[in-house]
């Protein structure tokens, strides 16, 4: 957590590039979180951007005695639930202050192929037995590292590595079959 505090301090001192390692570290978890809540990959991408942007804007209100992820998790959960409520009411997306997706547009053909493969993989994950699916979700949807998975599951690291190895192979086979 010390490195996180330093990155936050650097951002507040005027160096936006110090925000990069924070995004890099937590993008998977944030994306997984908002995708789980909204059930939409497209919404999740946009919301994940918004979560980090809002966190950056409010960085001076972040309580540095708490883990950074706990803070952005709250922002992410609130934004995702808000999106769901708006969707249920048929309201348009409330992102008027949001400048839209940044960066260059991805190659549409490449993007479509990747989306299709990702969708097949997600279906394959959904068909896994619950205890295996839980490990995949922890690792790839929530973005937990091995130590966090050890803590969450109570399984030794070696057991987790072996199970993940087998799951990767299993999912790879399902994808190609």
């Amino acid at each position, binding site marked *: 957590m010390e490195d996180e505090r330093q990155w936050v301090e650097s951002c507040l001192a005027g160096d936006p590039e110090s925000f990069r390692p924070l995004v890099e570290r937590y993008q998977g978890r944030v994306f997984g979180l908002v995708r789980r809540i909204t059930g939409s990959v497209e919404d999740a991408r946009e919301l994940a951007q918004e979560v980090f942007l809002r966190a*950056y804007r409010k960085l001076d209100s972040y309580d540095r005695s708490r883990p950074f992820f706990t803070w952005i998790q709250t922002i992410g959960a609130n934004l995702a639930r808000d999106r769901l409520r708006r969707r249920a009411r048929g309201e348009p997306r409330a992102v008027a202050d949001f400048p839209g997706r940044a960066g260059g547009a991805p190659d549409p053909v490449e993007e479509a192929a990747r989306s299709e493969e990702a969708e097949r993989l997600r279906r394959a994950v959904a068909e896994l037995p619950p205890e295996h699916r839980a490990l995949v979700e922890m690792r790839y949807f929530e973005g937990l590292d091995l130590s966090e998975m050890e803590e969450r599951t109570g399984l030794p690291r070696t057991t987790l590595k072996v199970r993940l190895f087998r799951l*990767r192979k299993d999912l790879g086979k399902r994808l190609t079959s």
Partner: protein
Amino acid sequence: MMTEPREPGVCPDAPHDVEDLLDGLLDPSDETAMLAHLATCDVCREARDDEARLRDLLGAPAGLLDEVMDLVRQEPWPGHVRTRRMHPVRWVAAAAVLMVATLAVLLVGDGRDGGKGNDPAPPALAGEDREARSVASARARDLVRRARIFLAAAGHAPRSTLRSELEMSGLAAVVDGTDLEGLGAADRDAVRRVALLGEAFRNDAPVARAEIAMLTEGLR
């Protein structure tokens, strides 16, 4: 060169875990050692490629990091709020509110104004010091009381009502110009959160209910 793994996916020669490498958890020297091992170990390389593929397909989409950073670079630096200068009209409003608060305190006497009074009682002081302390304390408590009322309404009242309340109470201006010394941590937090909302309202920035909920969390 590689040793046959005793357990599938667990290379006995690997100095570190492939997962930790991809998670960016290794120190530079450990990372170098692991990369050197990967160059010679088919088992670990295959594990690394499989892991990277699943992360790519199931984790955050490719390009998200750069997209976020492009947005971040367009933002003013997040510390700017603290150094923002207040509009002269706001100073006038702040002064007016402070005068009213001071008068109220003088009329009431000792500043026991019905505030929640979470802070420990100040030490006994004599004469002018005590009076000054009492005024400051009452002002601070009044501020906190207003902040808490505002925050209690913030989760459900229409935005137009909140905005008008913020303007009429002069709370945002007071928040900007008030020395928070002497307030307890929870009260400071309440005032600071109102300041953030006030800042957004005054700048006409959309404030989502989720954001209000976050700012008011634990304060009602």
